């Protein structure tokens, strides 16, 4: 059964690549670059064009910084709101409402405040991942079984001990799933931000290659972004699995 599924999956992939190859022969070069051109170009750019590394570095830096900031702020606020009932009841509706707003609405404002360089992308990715991290942390902490907490208190545990020994382990799986969502959203945020207006980064490369009708280059950069996104996604899943084991 496993093997059968795997073979079907490979067949789909092969079908996509063959379709891509033949359809790109059928339409003008501007629209599609065939796989047989794109993959050699990918290798060529990767080995000879050192520029790609500075763009890669910029994008990676933006992703890591925005993710770090969003995780720190989201965890802090999530823990505060999760343990403090009154604040949660007051601010949860506001946070949920803001979370329902399509995130890209904020981007033109950020572009105006922070300029075209990296700061606006970091801020945008921060906004994207801050909400899911905060809201899931809050839910995870507030949904911890009250009996466990009471039992720990009645056995004489201090507030800090209860937090470390009971609340944190019990809510960890949910919190980590929020963080994993946030990580994926950071990648999306940074790429979207760069494509909508920027100076450096992979998103800028994609947008400018498309504007210049350099379709083969556009495909190469797209593939690089896809690989990065899938890798980051796997890292996020690893996080989640780690917590279930412990």
């Amino acid at each position, binding site marked *: 059964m496993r093997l*059968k599924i795997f073979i079907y999956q490979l067949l789909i992939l092969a079908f996509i690549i063959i379709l891509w190859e033949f359809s790109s022969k059928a339409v003008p070069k501007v629209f599609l670059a065939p796989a047989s051109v794109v993959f050699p170009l990918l290798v060529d750019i990767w080995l000879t064009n050192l520029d790609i590394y500075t763009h890669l570095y910029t994008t990676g830096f933006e992703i890591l910084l925005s993710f770090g900031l969003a995780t720190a702020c989201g965890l802090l606020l999530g823990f505060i709101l999760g343990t403090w009932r009154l604040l949660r009841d007051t601010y949860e509706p506001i946070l949920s409402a803001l979370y329902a707003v399509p995130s*890209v*609405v904020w981007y033109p404002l950020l572009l*105006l405040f922070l300029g075209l360089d990296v700061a606006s992308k970091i801020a945008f990715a921060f906004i994207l991942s801050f909400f899911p991290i905060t809201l899931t942390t809050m839910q995870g902490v507030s949904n911890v079984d009250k009996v466990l907490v009471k039992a720990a208190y009645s056995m004489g545990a201090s507030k800090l001990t209860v937090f470390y020994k009971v609340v944190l382990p019990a809510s960890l799986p949910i919190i980590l799933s929020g963080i994993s969502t946030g990580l994926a959203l950071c990648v999306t945020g940074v790429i979207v931000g760069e*494509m909508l207006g920027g100076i450096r980064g992979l998103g800028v490369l994609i947008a400018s290659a498309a504007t210049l009708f350099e379709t083969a280059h556009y495909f190469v950069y797209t593939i690089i*972004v896809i690989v990065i996104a*899938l890798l980051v996604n796997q890292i996020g899943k690893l996080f989640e699995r780690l917590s279930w084991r412990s």
Partner: protein
Amino acid sequence: MRKFQFLLQAATFIVVVAVWESVVSEGYVDPLFLPPPSKIFLSLISISPATFTALYDTLVKTLISFCIGSVAGVAIGIVVGSRSLLHEVLHPYVFGLYSIPRMIFLPLIVLFLGIGFNSTIFYAVLHTILPVIIVVVGGVRNIDRRLIFYAISLGAKGRQIYSKVIIPAALPSILSALRLGIIFSLLGVLIAEMYLSLSGIGFLMQRLSFAFKSADLFAVTILVALVAIIISAVLGEISKKIEERR
């Protein structure tokens, strides 16, 4: 208790606005970038009819792409969710496509369909369909297997199993998929408009940002955010009513 929370929310709002106003009027930040709330309020009450025309344009596009994307997404989700082999085979593709930033495909879509209505709709449909599929598949696969066995043992045939068992049982997840879908299609339309288009509120916002009209941009941002919050709140109420009636 609810009254007290409302007071607290109102107090927070007033404090934020007051601090913001004083920070700007004391000259700590340049009003060119961060306009004081009083000026934003003035732009908010004097929003031009052209803005509402653009907003209407965007909402029409959102509705069209939502209808296409959600109908297709729910149909695909039900079929894929109810067939194990299909689900196993397609699962990594759907999740992979979902986890990469979809905006990287936008330049290609624009290349094929041109700037404007068609490419915006296509991109927004792509944006809507994936989360809808994922939520509906999850819902269908969570249906209690026994329900289907009972229906079969009572003599239900293929179509009846879908219309009498699977769809009613998956209704809650279909409703939440639709709620998610409309926000995603609004997001898709806004991204496509901001990236490359000649009409709509996203286009207008990007233009205001590049023209440094910060007070007007703030006003439009608040307007769009409010519209999104109202849409998701109304849909939430509707689906609550439908669930209650069952």
